[in-house]
């Protein structure tokens, strides 16, 4: 404990000394770490971050619903369901392969151009793009979880008289989610960062607010402010994910969970 603390401090000091003794440090410090600039733009970046948090909130709900639907469709058996199963598979393949930024451009600029919808703020389309992309990832994770639920669990549920839908909702999905919680949390953490990409559509989020600050002052410090804020909001989820993964590994080592 003491040793690790000391070695951490020593390493930190060494890195710090190395960095501040580089020839360009003074210029870099000026351009990236200017406290006055940071203070000046903190309010607008914080306001932008509030938009990111709201987008994250709605996107997470949207993903939970849509991904569950996709996963269920992909696990339906029987020839009757072939068309929907095929569509769901094609959907997940397509969106897992497409970079999010392209989906953002297509949804954010393409759909409004159709003229089908009333004018909506860009963050709405950004949220839609996030839902479309992340649902594909999350659906795959959930599907893997559903397939890992022992078949006898379905038999036991059906023989109690539960309907197919009740079996899914009360027995299969809860067990599936437990099995894949670390993977789901990882997707959540990466979505927390990717909400910053809605700035490409012109939504005034934290990244866009920082960009405005940078254009105003020719100083990159606002980006550092935005970056730090993103780290701060995602930190609890990151720690939680680590904890869950470690716990899952411990359990597997003990083995023999039913």
């Amino acid at each position, binding site marked *: 404990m003491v040793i690790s603390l000391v070695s951490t401090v020593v390493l930190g000091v060494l890195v710090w000394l190395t960095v501040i003794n580089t020839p360009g440090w003074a210029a870099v410090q000026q351009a990236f770490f200017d406290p006055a600039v940071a203070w000046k733009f903190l309010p607008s970046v914080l306001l932008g971050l509030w938009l990111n948090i709201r987008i994250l909130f709605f996107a997470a709900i949207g993903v939970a619903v849509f991904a569950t639907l996709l996963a269920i469709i992909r696990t339906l058996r029987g020839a009757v369901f072939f068309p929907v199963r095929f569509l769901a598979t094609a959907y997940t393949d397509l969106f897992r392969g497409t970079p999010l930024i392209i989906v953002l451009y297509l949804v954010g600029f393409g759909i409004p151009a159709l003229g089908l919808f009333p004018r909506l703020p860009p963050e709405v389309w950004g949220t839609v793009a996030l839902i479309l992309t992340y649902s594909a990832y999350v659906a795959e994770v959930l599907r893997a979880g559903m397939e890992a639920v*022992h078949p*006898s*669990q379905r*038999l*036991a*549920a*059906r*023989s*109690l*008289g*539960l*309907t197919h839908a*009740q079996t899914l909702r*009360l*027995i299969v999905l*809860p*067990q599936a989610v*437990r099995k894949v919680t670390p993977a789901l949390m990882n997707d959540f953490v990466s979505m927390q960062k990717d909400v910053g990409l809605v700035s490409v559509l012109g939504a005034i989020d934290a990244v866009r607010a920082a960009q405005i600050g940078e254009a105003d002052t020719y100083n990159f410090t606002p980006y550092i402010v935005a970056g730090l804020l993103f780290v701060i909001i995602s930190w609890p989820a990151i720690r939680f994910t680590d904890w869950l993964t470690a716990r899952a590994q411990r359990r597997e080592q003990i083995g023999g*969970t*039913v």
Partner: protein
Amino acid sequence: MSGDETTTTPPVLRVRGVHKSFDGTAVLSGIDLDIASHQVVVAIGASGSGKSTLLKTINLLERVDDGQIFLKGDDITDPRVNVDSVRSRIGVVFQQFNLFPHLSVIDNVTLASRKVHGVARDEAEAEAERWLDRIGLRAKLKDYPDRLSGGQQQRVAIVRAILSKPELLLLDEITSALDPLLVGEVLDLVRDLKTAGATILMTTHEMSFARSAADHVVFLHQGVILEQGAPDAFFGAPTAPETREYLSRLHAG
């Protein structure tokens, strides 16, 4: 519930000419079986003789290819029948993996009452607690199944099956996966149910239990009932050579 109860009450279960094959291989080749109310029927036979398949066709987990099955006179093999409502009239316990690992003992046993039969939670739990008390597991009510021994898990599974007051209880080798020390406590519970008047069709390899607790024993061989009778006659003087061979191999093993 019509007609003259004393003379025309149908048997709880009536199986008539049931055939079932998988990929062209016949597994059940014409099964006939009646089980009267409060009767305990034990089905025995070698591995692969079709015992589990027979139980699954009764529970509609498998559909019959031919023949009919009646539950208290209702033809449950009719394609128009509501599968879920038939299943809710039959209790089933399998060899293992019966309990839901993400639900506590009390939630496991009350699930069907609450979700299928629409019983209020309080009422379902009160009844469940009485049963758990009876099997000595009241203290484990809030525990999750992985905290229970195999024998305790099977007893909870049996309580879960009977809590929805099934007309028929199907038990498929419920002690086969258990440590020999735990077999007794599970079979004692089955005996209690028999005393309480349950109607049971079960498969087992525990011949001494079959002999002492069954009202009727059927021997399955290659998808047909080769021999059947009251336990004393069946075990005392089996007639078919296949039955004799099966029983002697059990004693040897």
